[in-house]
């Protein structure tokens, strides 16, 4: 990572330590989401094997059954790099610590995790329609993860549309970082949007759950 930033002194108008904060927040939240919802990755396998029928026969919400079928604490260890980055970045950067910034950071951590979780749910819902759907949705899940760790000001137009608003990745780490650092942000993404992450989280969940529900109703059954 150091190598990537070594030659470029400022990325998208940010310094290295500022980018480190974007990366840290995004990575910690994504790792948390991955721990809770990452197991939805195995949905295509269930669909292919036709073993999903069994989940329909149990009196719990399908989504809950799928995510709890394997909550892996091992996945949490992946958060360590992000956590280290975040702690170092919070320490190195010049942040005006106040109740507002602490509150903002806490809110960001919760809402960003929720947004990444919602992306997993959306991707899972899409598996019901798509053949080899994982390849398609991974572009958004892991593409989104990667995009979130970057300052959104360096994104190109299509990325801005997809990860700025449809899957609000810019809101998860970049914009909160701007707000924490007291920077204004680009005109299309003003820093005050950092206070609206709950709205973006709610939107993501509505979008994700709608897809999921649509997918569940579209299930074709496992044969037999």
């Amino acid at each position, binding site marked *: 990572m150091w190598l990537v930033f070594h030659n470029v002194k400022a990325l998208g108008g940010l310094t290295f330590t500022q980018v480190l904060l974007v990366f840290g927040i995004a990575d910690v939240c994504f790792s948390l989401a991955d721990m809770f919802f990452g197991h939805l990755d195995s949905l295509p396998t269930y669909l292919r094997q*036709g*073993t999903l*029928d*069994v989940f*329909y*026969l*149990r*009196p*719990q*919400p399908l989504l809950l059954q799928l995510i709890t079928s394997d909550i892996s604490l091992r996945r949490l260890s992946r958060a360590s790099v992000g956590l280290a980055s975040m702690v170092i970045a919070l320490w190195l950067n010049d942040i005006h610590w106040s109740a507002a910034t602490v509150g903002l950071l806490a809110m960001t951590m919760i809402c960003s995790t929720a947004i990444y979780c919602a992306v997993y749910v959306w991707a899972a819902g899409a598996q019901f329609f798509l053949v080899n759907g994982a390849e398609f949705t991974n572009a958004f899940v892991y593409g989104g993860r990667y995009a979130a760790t970057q300052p959104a000001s360096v994104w190109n137009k299509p990325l801005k549309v997809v990860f700025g608003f449809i899957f609000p990745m810019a809101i998860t780490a970049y914009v909160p970082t701007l707000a924490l650092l007291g920077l204004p942000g680009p005109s299309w993404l003003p820093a005050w949007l950092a206070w609206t992450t709950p709205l973006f989280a709610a939107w993501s969940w509505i979008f994700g759950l709608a897809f999921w529900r649509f997918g569940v*109703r*579209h*299930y*074709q*059954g*496992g*044969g*037999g």
Partner: protein
Amino acid sequence: MIIETDQLTREFKRRGKPKLVAVDHLDIRVEPGETVGYIGANGAGKSTTIKMLTGILVPTSGSVRTCGLDPLKQRRELARRVGVVFGQRSQLWWDLPTAESFTILGAIHHLGRTELTARRDELVEQLELGEFLSTPVRQLSLGQRMRAEVAAALLHSPQLIILDEPTIGLDVLSKQRLRDFLVAERRRHGTTLLLTTHDMGDIERLCERVLVVDHGRLAYDGSLAGLSRTVGAQRVLVVDLADGTRQRIPFDAEKVTAATVLAQASERAEVRDLSIEEPDIEDVVRRIYSAAR
């Protein structure tokens, strides 16, 4: 009414081919306590119907109510009242011992500890699961696994049991045991039973009523005897005579008893051994189909 379908239809889209109507305007009504055999050729639409009854598949049109509930909107409530066994699918945890699967299922269905213990002990005894309770499911024989599957589906004492080919692949003895268990279970708890099978023995032993489905449409609804009568299926008395020859004597079970036929045969020659062949389910179904066309 425990099962009620009204013009229930399910289509599947197929690439490059016209859509397939797997279940076609099906009207079925089942009262609590009935035992119903749901039979038909491969691909007739049996499993598809069952999946709509349990909320797995969404009907293309028509309506369905199971245990008085809407299987889609009230899927979770329904799951507490129905037990389903798919002969070709497992609902046990492959790597866990059977006993542990039961514990998990008990938690899933919110069974109290005493309730769970009592029910589990009952099922373990009735289905003779004791000897392999601590064996991981993947190491069980097919017969053992099926018994464990049935126990798993009945753990929460459902009012309706749906079995999709429960005896597939079982040997004669295992089939017999499973049927005996289902008969006893029903006598004890008054459970409603719906089962699909390709084995006439299952139907004869378990079902008072038979539904025959053909290309997604209901071709027959009535008693098994009535079905045999409709298609003129006959039982056959096979006798080995003292002179070493074997005779096959078809007779109509509605009109004469096997004993009478045997008595008449014995008058003519000395009978050393005998067996009775039941009408074959595939044969009965085939005749229904050809009669309908």
